[in-house]
């Protein structure tokens, strides 16, 4: 095993690693569902970038990157969006229920 050369893939890989650390910190420590959800998405962005450098280093056969991890990331971004949307609707509904309870009236 030898040290990776200092190129774009390495730079963005280190960025991805730091983004995962930052996102994890937010998911664990932040108060409020919305902020945690945001932090989780930041973390996801870092994970996707790490996949991206695997793709970049697998460049060959005339492609600028290995197409398989790239396709995985595209699927991942779409699924992450769906999960986020569902979570946000849940958070909104929870907030609605809370304010109903607080004002003493249900629906």
């Amino acid at each position, binding site marked *: 095993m030898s040290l990776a050369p200092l190129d774009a893939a390495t730079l963005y890989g280190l960025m991805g690693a730091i983004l995962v650390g930052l996102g994890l910190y937010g998911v664990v420590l932040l108060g409020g569902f919305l902020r945690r959800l945001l932090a989780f998405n930041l973390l996801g962005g870092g994970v996707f970038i790490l996949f991206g450098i695997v793709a970049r280093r697998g460049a060959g*056969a005339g492609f600028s990157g290995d197409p398989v991890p790239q396709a995985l990331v595209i699927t991942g971004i779409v699924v992450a969006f769906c999960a986020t949307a569902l979570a946000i609707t849940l958070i909104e509904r929870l907030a609605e229920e809370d304010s109903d309870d607080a004002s003493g009236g249900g629906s």
Partner: protein
Amino acid sequence: MMGLILDGGIALLTIGIAAWTIRAADDFAAVVGFVAYGLVLTLAWTRLGAYDVALTEAAIGGGATGVILMRAGARVKPAPAIRPSKRARIIVGALCAAVAAGLSAIVLLPPQPAPSLALEVREHLASTGLGNPIGGVLMAYRAADTFLETVVVLLALFGVWSLGRDAQWGGRPGPAPRSGDGGALPLFARVLVPAGIVIGIYIVWVGADAPGGKFQGATILAAMAILASMAGLVQAPPTSGRRLRWLLAAGPIVFVGIGLAGIPLAGAFLAYPPGFEKPLILVIEVALTVSLAAMLALIVAGPPEHAP
């Protein structure tokens, strides 16, 4: 060298925006930070040569996710700020730093030679008739995944709908249209929506041979539908509408229909009969684009809010 400086700048900017988003004082500021994060990540993906992913990140990461987050930011009362103790912050910070350091080690000590399926993709791409390797992977090698992915999007939409109040089941989502909202928004929507529809269709169309494709194009089309509804030009359809439900189901039905036809004709589920790969993939892509655009727009619109 010049390129490396630019990459370093983009990386630092991305980390700075992410850190700012974590630390931001209020929810609205954090949402703005997150949208900015999506925009700079698009630059990073472009620099990595992953143009397909850059398109997806620009459309979904910055655009669609940002808009649903804003909706929540405007409606949810900010949570009382919990100030974790200094000790908790130090311990969690150290653990997260350790995770980042571990990942950095993996980045810095890659396996030699780098694992890659690029050669295999190149070998089989010709049989799909497509020029875009990522489109080929999504529609042939990982066709079952792509099919399930559209089902996941549909399930997410059902999940969003089922979180509405019982009395409003089947009604229209989103705020009631306001006439005379004034301002520049209606004019903006009247000009941008047609332009955006053309661009969305173009992105799907070039996706066969160049970066682009159905998810990116469908998100652009969905964004235009949301914009038209924000400007009060159109109202979201009732979620119980028969036509709407067929529109949502059309993509998955076409996909699974062609997939099932592959069993007798090509010997496997989702296999394409030789000679018909490209036209069949295009038919699936078009049907999926229409359904995905409707699904994504309705997911962003949220649960029904008006009784049917």
